[in-house]
């Protein structure tokens, strides 16, 4: 069966009616319409992340890491040299003292982090589960750039660009350390 035939079948499936919901559904939804709707808070993405997807800590971590990523994309070698970024980094390290919190943050953040990387997101590798926070040699996350080199975020949230060989060395070092 070719793509066109599958698309035609999907088109037919679209025309197939779904059995309707119970009549009360619309009524029930309307019953829950509030008297007033909350005003715009100013931070769309963050609010939605907080309210719908993940915990506040993870949302905050994602926001901070996004700032680091953007700072890095703007051409800064050391994305944590500004005070606000330095403070954010310390804050994350403070949160991560508790392993349970760290695990939750890493688990919840991994998918969102992947979504935040602007290019070739399918190829992002993330090692949140095994990286110790603050470890400047451990590779937390990397992805391949157009020029064949790799953009890397280390465990201490420093951002760097490595060649394939350098990345391999960094990962071997990280694994050796783990085995030791």
């Amino acid at each position, binding site marked *: 069966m070719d793509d066109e035939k599958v698309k035609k*079948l999907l088109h037919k499936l*679209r025309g*197939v009616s*779904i059995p309707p919901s119970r009549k009360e*559904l619309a009524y029930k939804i309307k019953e*829950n319409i509030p*008297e007033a709707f*909350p005003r715009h808070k100013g931070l769309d993405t963050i609010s939605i992340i907080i309210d*719908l*997807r993940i915990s506040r800590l993870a949302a905050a971590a994602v926001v901070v890491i996004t700032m680091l990523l953007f700072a890095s994309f703007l051409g800064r070698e050391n994305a944590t040299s500004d005070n606000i970024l330095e403070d954010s980094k310390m804050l994350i390290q403070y949160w991560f003292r508790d392993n349970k919190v760290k695990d939750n943050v890493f688990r919840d953040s991994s998918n969102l982090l992947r979504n935040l990387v602007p290019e070739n997101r399918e190829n992002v590798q993330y090692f949140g589960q095994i990286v110790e926070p603050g470890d400047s040699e451990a590779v937390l996350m990397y992805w391949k750039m157009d020029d064949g080199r790799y953009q890397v975020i280390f465990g201490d949230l420093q951002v760097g660009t490595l060649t394939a060989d350098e990345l391999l060395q960094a990962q071997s070092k990280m694994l050796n350390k783990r085995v030791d």
Partner: protein
Amino acid sequence: MMEQKAISKHLLKRQKVIGEHVEKELISYESLLTRIRNGNRAAAAELVDIFYMQIYAYMRRLGYSSEVSEDLTQQTFLQIWQHIGQLRNSKALNSWIYKVASNVSRLYLRKHKGKQTVNIEDVVLGYEKDNEENVVLNEQLRQLNKILIQMPVKFKEVIIIHYLQGLNISEGSRALGILEGTFKSRLNRGLKILRKELGSGE
């Protein structure tokens, strides 16, 4: 030549009608949003009438039972009321509502990880009555629906949102919070899975 002219004239007219229809829809969405933001509950009820069946159908097509789909549709609207103040662009209303619905669905899946969340037996669709002509087609549609429901979520979502719910690539990618390129590649991979599975059943 005359025929060609008549066709172009007809197409231009049709384009104009579609353009006017889209424009009217956007204007009505904008005024609807403004009224909702001003606390008009009747406008919110209008929004429910426009979208609740679409969202319910989306949940059913994702493979949830009718009870769960109703529950998730209600939760979607609760989230909409909570966040509608954040939506500034009325043109994005459609994709934004689907984005909220997709998030609600993903949250449900996360909460019920490891448990069976979709049930093929539950999804009874209103196929046309089997007659000689329709027997093969109906069987193919049943098979397609079954494969679709069992597909990995990330492919299932794009196929359903684009081909069954009718969102275009741009709206669909915004609704799922992914890049257009990723959306297209998932569509292709999803189609490949369907092609393969349907082929193996032939």
